[in-house]
């Protein structure tokens, strides 16, 4: 309390300084559980140790998407636990900022929720001497439509109905469109409180991409990270909207699976046109990933997700987050460490460790392709 005495006005000035964004600088490699003799129940780290190929020890600096932050945290802990002398520092500054830092040569890899745009690839050529930046899918995710409606335990929605709910075209829970999808459910005659993200977010981007592709024109806005529709309420961050859904009756929002799980929120199943509605589970999302086409060329493994899929048990509202690296021209001194770390993250152990934290382990069809690319990095 330096408020008293000499420094009153100084203290006032300090009070006015505002925290713009909190970077989570997690301490690196503090759990040095070499050998992993810990109990086998915890987050797959026990099984991970023998499979990790450490490569040359060194330190990696990375930045990007907050959506994959939790996965990176787990991988980092397991990897630097097994490989003493290697530290990984990942800053969750957002996909856009991550790519920007990558293209300025400040980080060895960037995490991004969406594949590189052509302009970003062009910019990367300055950093990747003789090569360019590529996308490597590393962690899958799915977006749950979470709801909190009294007396309703399971809810089925389809893309047009969900799009109209989030666009405030459907405003009551007992709207005929919702009732038609949920025969027998006791839907209340209450206003729908829809929540969206107030910050720009890859989750919003993926949701609106899904609406644009699958909602048959019910979503009239272009897909973007910024929420474009007019109605509804907003909250900051996945944790923020999840907290609102928990707090507010008759609400609905969209968050990634992990947030739905940690907040014990109910997720709607999606009627995709398959024989029965698809539940929001990791297994159903993996089915969608397995069928995704690769849209990147060469060693770029950007995925083209089929949001309009009608396959049995394929949950359509999924997202994939990438690690951005150079195909050629990575920094020589960290190349080996980078390959070793990425090799671990895409390994079965790495994917399982992320899966325990609410991510969707990528199917073998995809991990095989990523595994084939990693050794070719130079």
């Amino acid at each position: 309390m330096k408020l008293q005495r000499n420094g009153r006005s100084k203290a006032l000035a300090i009070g006015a300084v505002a925290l713009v964004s909190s970077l989570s600088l997690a301490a690196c490699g503090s759990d040095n559980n070499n050998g992993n003799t810990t109990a086998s129940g915890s987050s797959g780290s026990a099984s991970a140790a023998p499979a990790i190929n450490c490569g040359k020890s060194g330190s990696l600096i990375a930045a990007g998407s907050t959506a994959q932050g939790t996965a990176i945290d787990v991988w980092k802990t397991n990897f630097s636990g097994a490989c003493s002398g290697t530290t990984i520092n990942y800053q969750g500054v957002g996909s856009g900022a991550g790519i920007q830092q990558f293209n300025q040569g400040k980080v060895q890899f960037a995490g991004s929720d969406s594949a590189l745009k052509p302009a970003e690839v062009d910019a990367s050529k300055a950093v990747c001497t003789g090569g360019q930046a590529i996308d490597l899918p590393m962690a899958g995710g799915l977006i749950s439509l979470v709801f909190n409606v009294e007396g309703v335990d399971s809810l089925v929605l389809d893309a047009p109905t969900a799009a109209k709910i989030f666009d405030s075209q459907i405003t009551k829970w007992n709207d005929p469109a919702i009732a038609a999808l949920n025969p027998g459910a006791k839907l209340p005659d209450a206003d729908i409180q829809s929540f969206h993200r107030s910050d720009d977010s890859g989750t919003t981007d993926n949701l609106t991409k899904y609406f644009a592709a699958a909602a048959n024109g019910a979503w009239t806005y272009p897909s973007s990270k910024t929420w474009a529709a007019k109605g509804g309420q907003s909250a900051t961050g996945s944790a923020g909207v999840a907290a609102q859904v928990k707090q507010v009756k008759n609400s609905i929002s969209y968050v990634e699976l992990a947030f739905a799980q940690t907040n014990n929120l109910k997720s709607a199943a999606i009627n995709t046109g398959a024989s029965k509605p698809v539940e929001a589970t990791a297994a159903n999302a993996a089915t969608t990933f397995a069928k995704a086409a690769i849209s990147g060329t060469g060693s770029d493994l950007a995925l083209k997700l089929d949001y309009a899929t009608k396959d049995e048990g394929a949950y359509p509202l999924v997202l994939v987050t990438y690690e951005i690296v150079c195909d050629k021209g990575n920094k020589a001194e960290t190349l080996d460490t980078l390959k070793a770390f990425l090799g671990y993250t895409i390994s079965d152990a790495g994917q399982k460790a992320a899966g325990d934290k609410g991510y969707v382990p990528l199917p073998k069809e995809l991990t095989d392709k990523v595994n084939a690319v990693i050794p070719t990095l130079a």
Partner: protein
Amino acid sequence: MTSSSPAAPQGRERRTRDSRVGDKIFMNLARGSGILLLVIMAAIAGFLAWRSGLALSNNQGNFLTTFEWAPDAPKPVFGIPVLVVGTIVSAVIAMAIAVPVAIGIALFISHYAPRRIAQPFAYLVDLLAAVPSIVYGLWGALFLVPHMDGLTSWLNEYLGWTYIFDQTKSGTPRNLFTVGILLAIMVLPIITAVTREVFRQVPRMHEEAALALGATRWEMIRTAVLPFGRPGIISASMLGLGRALGETIAVAVVLSSSNVLSLHILDAGGGTFAQNIALKFAEAGDSGRNALMASGLVLFVITLLVNGAARLIIARRKEYSGANA
């Protein structure tokens, strides 16, 4: 900083020379600090102006009339009216609530409370200023918002005819009004602390003269204390207003922001400059960052104008307040 050699036996001569050197050092330090401040201000303004220029030349919408904020879209469109209105409305609500309460607290501490209570009470108020704004934000989101329902619906029912208190949308009260109340609590300690000090400096003679003429305690405060303290109250309010205008994270946590311009302050929606910057910065691309800088420049200018206005008011008041008597 100054070197005051204690009890130098060499006598007068040496002491004056010593203090001359000290004076010089101190003068240069003070002057340097002043210059440094101006240089920093100019650098901030220059940097913001440069980046804003880049952003504005790309803007396909009108910066002054567009409601959307989509600077990273293929056709960048962004504008500030929603932010200007939101920032000013929330700050005005905050000031309307905080200033009277702060004056009351300050008067209580300086003129009413027994010394035994006044001292710890003053500390307590100062303590409020030390609470980080994220804590206020979380308190606002988790406690204040759920408890605002009653007041919101009361205002809507009895004052709905005033248009501004008319609630047109259902939903939780995560609106500019709630933000205003939260900001009021946040700026309260600043305004209280400064006004309290000013009230303490009211010349004893003035107060005793008022009392001797038969004034009651309240009349004494009205005739002697408040006129003397008016410039102080104004500058204290400006300090508070500065914080209210620039508050970031607490607003970001509490407000349900949108790009809808509405003067129905009980409807969720709207936004403020600082909150918008905090929310959009993380995922913004080059163009988005420049656009945010442009909005930052506008906030900078608004704050300068407000402070300038305050200076003018204080300068004019000085002439006929009791301060120069």
